[in-house]
């Protein structure tokens, strides 16, 4: 096992117009910050998008990331989501090969993890799983034995638990 890199979930409320994603991505690349995953979509207020960015790195790096992000004109609000009080989820679509009589075992795994079966074809099935990134890692690990043909995952999206919101 590789040494675990600390990961931080940053939630940013940004203006919802074209170019914002480029500004954020450009900032990360030119300052040498890495991104594990980034999700973005319009919020309850169509003026804003919410970005959930998972960033690997130590505290010093995260501080710089947040301060640099906060400087962008398009950034309205930025939060570091605390692991303990964060609700997070990710969506996975995965196509698994089912030749050699493996269909039954794949479907059994899907059922065990509560994955949905989205498509059944001659030589494969496509499954959908929503859950924590760790759950999805484990699920993928399990399916690798059957043979994954391709997969797509959205990256983590997250909100803080409780009544509080980023708008406050």
């Amino acid at each position: 096992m590789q040494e675990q890199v600390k990961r931080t979930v940053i939630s940013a409320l940004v203006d919802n117009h074209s170019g914002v994603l480029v500004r954020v991505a450009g900032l990360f690349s030119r300052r040498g910050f890495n991104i594990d995953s980034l999700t973005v979509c319009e919020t309850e207020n169509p003026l804003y998008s919410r970005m959930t960015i998972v960033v690997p790195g130590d505290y010093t790096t995260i501080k710089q990331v947040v301060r640099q992000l906060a400087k962008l004109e398009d950034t309205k609000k930025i939060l570091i989501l605390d692991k303990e009080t964060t609700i997070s989820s990710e969506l996975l679509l995965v196509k698994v090969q089912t030749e050699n009589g493996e269909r039954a075992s794949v479907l059994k795994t899907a059922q065990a993890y509560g994955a949905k079966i989205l498509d059944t074809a001659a030589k494969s099935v496509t499954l959908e799983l929503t859950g924590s990134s760790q759950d999805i890692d484990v699920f993928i690990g399990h399916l690798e034995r059957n043979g994954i043909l391709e997969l797509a995952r959205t990256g983590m999206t997250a909100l803080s638990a409780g009544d509080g919101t980023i708008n406050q």
Partner: protein
Amino acid sequence: MDNQKTGAQILIECLLEQKVDTVFGYPGGAVLNIYDALYEYSDQIRHVLTAHEQGAAHAADGYARATGRTGVVIATSGPGATNLVTGIANAYMDSIPMVAITGNVAVDLLGRDSFQEIDITGITMPITKHNYIVKDIETLADIVRDAFVIANSGRKGPVLIDIPKDITAKKTKYTKKEAAEKRKSLPPKEKKINLALELIKQSKKPMIYAGGGVISSECSRELVTFGERLQIPVATSMMALGCIPADHPLNLGMIGMHGTVHANLAAHKCDLLIVAGARFSDRVATSRSNFAKHAKIIHIDIDYAEFDKNVVSSVHIAGDLKEVIAELDKGLSPADHSEWLTVIEGHRKPLKKVDHSDFPHPDFVIEKVNALCKDPIVVTDVGQHQMWTAQYYPFQSPRTFLTSGGLGTMGFGLGAAIGAQAGMPDRQVVLFSGDGSFHMNLHETTTLASYGFPVIVIIMNNSVLGMVRQWQKVFYGNRFSQTDPHRKTDFVALAKAFGIDGLRIETPEDVEPVLKQAIALQKPVIIDCRISPDANVLPMIPPGGSAEEIITEM
């Protein structure tokens, strides 16, 4: 309806709202409507036409540095826009307020690789505080207004507005508005102020490292008074030169790679470093881990992202420097650090004369300019001449030394001098350049000639690319690769070809009479001043080295 105006007219109206009276630029296809409006408003806005858009961008930058106001530059789409890039980057690196306006092809031609189309907002994202492309005329006026607010608020910097040609032609209703105030920065946090006060009170060997923030916050006087009350010596980055008079007893001079020995040693030995509007550039903190390593650090800056970016501080205070100094001042009684000041004095060595060849010495030329010119604005290009000017010119007040700090842009000087002269018509502007730097944008001599800007250009002509050559001498065993270009340019003849006067200094005896002649002209003039190709910039801390590794002899 009579309050219907074209986008181009609205743009100019919005510039007038901001009290803009001078813009720099170059016309072209995509900005024809804007230039037509400039023609219409020519009694209210002066447009300075340069030879090349880069010169216009540097002029807007020099204008802003000299006047403290936002510089404005206009260029057409495509090559016009890309030619601005170096100038915008230069302003960005030195936090200079600038609004750059570019034309673009009409909205329905965008994204089709149309003639002279370029994605300038994409290109300039990393070198602007913010940028816009205007796709709806209804948003134009507020975008222009916001651009000025952003350029001027917090840590200042350039903002670009890209306007497609059809937007400048369309009409809409325009309602005049007063220029908005810049955004107020948050007041400094009391807790941080108290932590800083404790450190200052405990310190036996404090020192201030002042940066360009002192100039942009307009608080030079406050900083010096603060230093005087507490008897804290002040070293300045190159960007802060002029914030404390050169001959002030507390002034340690410039800190960093080519700074004074005693400023650098003081930073090494102090127990408290108060960093005022500076950012620990690698040309100051040549070694991040060794810089001021025996000191606690109080970092004051308006840009929160500067804290702990390069060097970690003990306390950081975010806010406008002027307000922070006032707050700190309130909590402190006068102090005496004479013992510490004596220690620093012990390290003070007069700067060495540059060299002893038969050529005029650069330091001698610089000292003569100071003696003969009345309160000039001194502009430089980049290289050895720039460092000599920073080291030897005894600056007395802020905004009298305009130089490319962060980006180190050779070719900056002539454009910047034009901008400074346009903004400060009553001041003598002197440009120190090098033959290398001057060659990069010498076409702007034509702008000096057209407008009669009485800039004195002094080319420190050593016939080589001196700074790079010096590094080749020190770090590459005299392997002079491409630094001796064997150019045959006759700068006196060149001046004449452009329609201005040209003079030459060949011996030390020429310096004074030629300078006097140049000053008396009150017209643009180029002085070709021959200096030795072997003159070095010293002292010098090698990159990555610490203050103790400073080289004083070569």
